[in-house]
């Protein structure tokens, strides 16, 4: 489909460098869905989600062992290879063990002018909202210091509106998976590009995409739900599509988790509104307890008409690996078959994954 969102992911480094040239602005990298990018944007900087590549790991193996989540490790690998030289700053949220390790490792190995550890609470509670609101105030202050100018409330308001607008269009696009058979790979590519492009630019691309998607031929695969710990590219979704599956709904960071919830524009305390959205409304299993997470997943699954669930958890992802037996049991009890992958995100897995996905689809299709 046009615009071909996947090329923005592919060219993200060139795009970021070009943006810096054009605007003279600073690029701030970040991990995970927990970081309120609106604040970075309001500071006049470009927030970019770090994404990895599936390359040989001999360089990064010097810094990290084998049995760890491959996603942050792959991002670090890209940095070692100089791909992220244009970053002026990095924000590491308090999420999981491996992402937290990025803070210390970046500190030791690179010298970024701005390296910020965002104290995201690891529990959802009203006390956590209070604390996170304060922390976002500190974060804002740090961005102001780094940027050399204050972030006006109005500027922040506009940023929140802009990001909400982009999320709304992503929601509309993702709904087309159900109503118009739009391939999920297109939606995931749209999300990934939103994570690396200036939001204004992405918003325009989304408008184009929605106009065109209305006329695109529908996919006709078996409707499936995808739950993933982190897929930082759309290859796996494409594989499912090649095997005859059609993802109609998902629960994953480079998917629904990125755009499902908005920041409350009516809350006069903008930092609190951000704290609420980023702490309470994202079903990240590091914070959201399994029962609550499952309830959300089931809501989405049941509304989508999916006939089975594929769960893809990256190796060593404790947060998702512990949930898995519970989710599997509950889904199967509701007559929803589950196919599980413990992924390494290497190319050699693909053949076995393909065979398993084809078998899964063949069994459900009957």
């Amino acid at each position: 489909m046009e615009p071909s969102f996947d090329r923005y992911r592919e060219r993200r480094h060139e795009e970021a460098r070009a943006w810096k040239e054009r605007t003279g602005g600073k690029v701030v990298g970040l991990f995970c869905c927990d970081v309120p990018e609106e604040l970075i944007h309001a500071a006049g900087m470009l927030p970019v989600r770090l994404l990895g590549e599936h390359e040989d790991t001999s360089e990064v193996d010097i810094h990290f062992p084998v049995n760890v989540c491959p996603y942050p490790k792959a991002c670090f690998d890209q940095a070692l290879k100089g791909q992220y030289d244009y970053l002026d700053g990095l924000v590491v949220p308090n999420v999981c063990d491996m992402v937290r390790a990025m803070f210390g490792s970046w500190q030791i190995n690179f010298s970024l002018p701005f390296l910020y550890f965002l104290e995201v609470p690891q529990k959802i509670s009203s006390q956590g909202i209070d604390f996170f609101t304060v922390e976002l105030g500190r974060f804002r202050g740090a961005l102001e210091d780094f940027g050399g100018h204050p972030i006006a409330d109005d500027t922040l308001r506009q940023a929140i509106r802009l990001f909400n607008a982009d999320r709304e269009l992503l929601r509309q696009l993702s709904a087309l998976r159900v109503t118009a058979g739009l391939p999920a790979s297109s939606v995931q590519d749209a999300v990934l590009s939103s994570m690396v492009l200036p939001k204004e630019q992405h918003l325009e691309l989304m408008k184009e995409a929605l106009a065109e998607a209305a006329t695109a031929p529908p996919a006709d695969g078996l409707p499936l739900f995808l739950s993933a710990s982190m897929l930082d590219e759309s290859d796996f979704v494409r594989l499912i599509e090649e095997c005859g599956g059609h993802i109609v709904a998902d629960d994953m960071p480079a998917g629904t988790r990125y755009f499902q919830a908005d920041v409350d524009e009516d809350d006069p305390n903008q930092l609190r509104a951000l704290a609420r959205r980023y702490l309470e409304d994202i079903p990240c299993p590091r914070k959201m307890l399994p029962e609550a997470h499952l309830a959300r997943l089931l809501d989405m699954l049941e509304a989508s008409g999916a006939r089975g669930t594929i769960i893809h958890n990256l190796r060593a992802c404790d947060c998702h690996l512990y949930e898995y037996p519970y989710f599997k049991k509950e889904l199967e009890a509701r007559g929803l078959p589950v196919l599980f992958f413990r992924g390494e995100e290497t190319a050699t897995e693909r053949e076995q994954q393909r065979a398993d996905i084809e078998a899964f689809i063949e069994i459900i299709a009957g």
Partner: protein
Amino acid sequence: MAGEDVVAGIDVGSHNVSAVLLSPTGILGYAILASAEEGERAAKRALAQACARVGHASVPTVVVATGCGRGSVRFAVRESSEVVCQARGAHWLFPQARTVLNLGAESSRAVRISPDGRAAAFATNDKCAAGSGRFLELMARVLEVPLEEMGDLALAADARAEVSSRCAVFAESEVISHIHRGLPKAHILAGIHVAVVDRIVEIAGRIGVEREVVVTGGLALNRALLAELESRLGVPLLIPPEPRIVGALGAALAAMASPK
């Protein structure tokens, strides 16, 4: 024989290609070849050989392909996954089958079969762990024992060395350690078989073992493995007369059910 009623199933595996000819009265014949060549050619050869063996003049036109190389069999009317074919084939042979353990050269899988004979759930072996024929082959090389003799030697052992089942690389270095320490080959072999069975039991556990249990694939010819597996699962194992053609049989059954 009515030629038009004969269909075929082909299983293009990584090590072997097998073809089964099926008529409304049952299995007409089959062939198993080592697949040293490109998938479609090997499939054609296997099919031709099966036909030649039973004097069947014309090659059936309705053919379904399964196995990891099924995509290359362009003359097949359709493909079917190994999981589904194993379930179908095992159930046809043993209508009481509710679990099939397919122990192949490259990979192993456990499949739950529903009472109506269809695959209901499955679990496949993690590629890098012990549990497949490839692992045994590797060990055969390390121990310098012919693959076909491994099972019998292991059966004769009166003790077993410990061999890890988690990781083939780790297991290999353990075995080398055992060799250096002078442990008898038979003991090491016994340990290797235990490791393979550990993995099989683990994947079987993921779907739950329900009787009757059928074992298929090349490893179903290994008596040491079967003895250990039966003891660990605590249920009798049903072994087809030719365990290596169950996938192709399942594909042939799919061909039989195809609309003409």
